[in-house]
């Protein structure tokens, strides 16, 4: 059974600080996706990483896929209150039709 462990589960920091969220597994994934979910809504895709060692940037968000494609990280620079939300990582094995989700990181940025 493939599992994705996210850490931390909860993070509360001040505006302007940097943070990193981790997504780890003992399994290899063909691709890994990061989503953000607002209360009462479905997950919204932020980025997909597919190549080991890949780094993608989305404004102040930097996503990295581990060399062995077993882990990923999300780094936010100079966090803002608008970054507050639930961040989910999700992975798919080669040929698989299902995404395995991590339990999420609930991020709160205090003004």
């Amino acid at each position, binding site marked *: 059974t493939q599992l994705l462990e996210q850490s931390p589960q909860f993070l509360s920091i001040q505006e302007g600080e940097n943070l990193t969220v981790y997504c780890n597994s003992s399994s290899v994934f*063909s*691709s890994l*996706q990061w*989503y953000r979910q607002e209360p*009462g*809504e*479905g*997950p*919204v*895709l932020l980025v*997909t990483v597919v190549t080991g060692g890949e780094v993608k940037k989305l404004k102040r968000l930097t996503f990295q896929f581990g060399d062995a494609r077993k882990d990923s990280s999300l780094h936010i620079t100079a966090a803002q209150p608008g970054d507050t939300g639930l961040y*989910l990582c*999700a992975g*798919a*094995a*080669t*040929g*698989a*039709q*299902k*995404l*395995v*989700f*991590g*339990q*999420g990181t609930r991020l709160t940025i205090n003004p």
Partner: protein
Amino acid sequence: EPEVTQTPSHQVTQMGQEVILRCVPISNHLYFYWYRQILGQKVEFLVSFYNNEISEKSEIFDDQFSVERPDGSNFTLKIRSTKLEDSAMYFCASSVQGAYNSPLHFGNGTRLTVT
């Protein structure tokens, strides 16, 4: 931007009743999915559907559940005899290619409450 739409947004039903949750995937997508999220827990895969048949399902997706694409646009999830533990948010998703090769686009969910 095209989006996945789900109806109803909230469904309340009594234990033992049948419910049908409806979804309209993005029109040029070929793969369709149902996921659920019990309050405070992970998003869990239920089933994937491609080329008018189930391509993968989880152990949660037992005989009480079925999916159908009755026409060219709708994708439905039926729960035959609901149980209290079926209470959850149910998300429909679609993608151009399979999940390993293509990002999923999710609807805003149906909150199912079984009393």
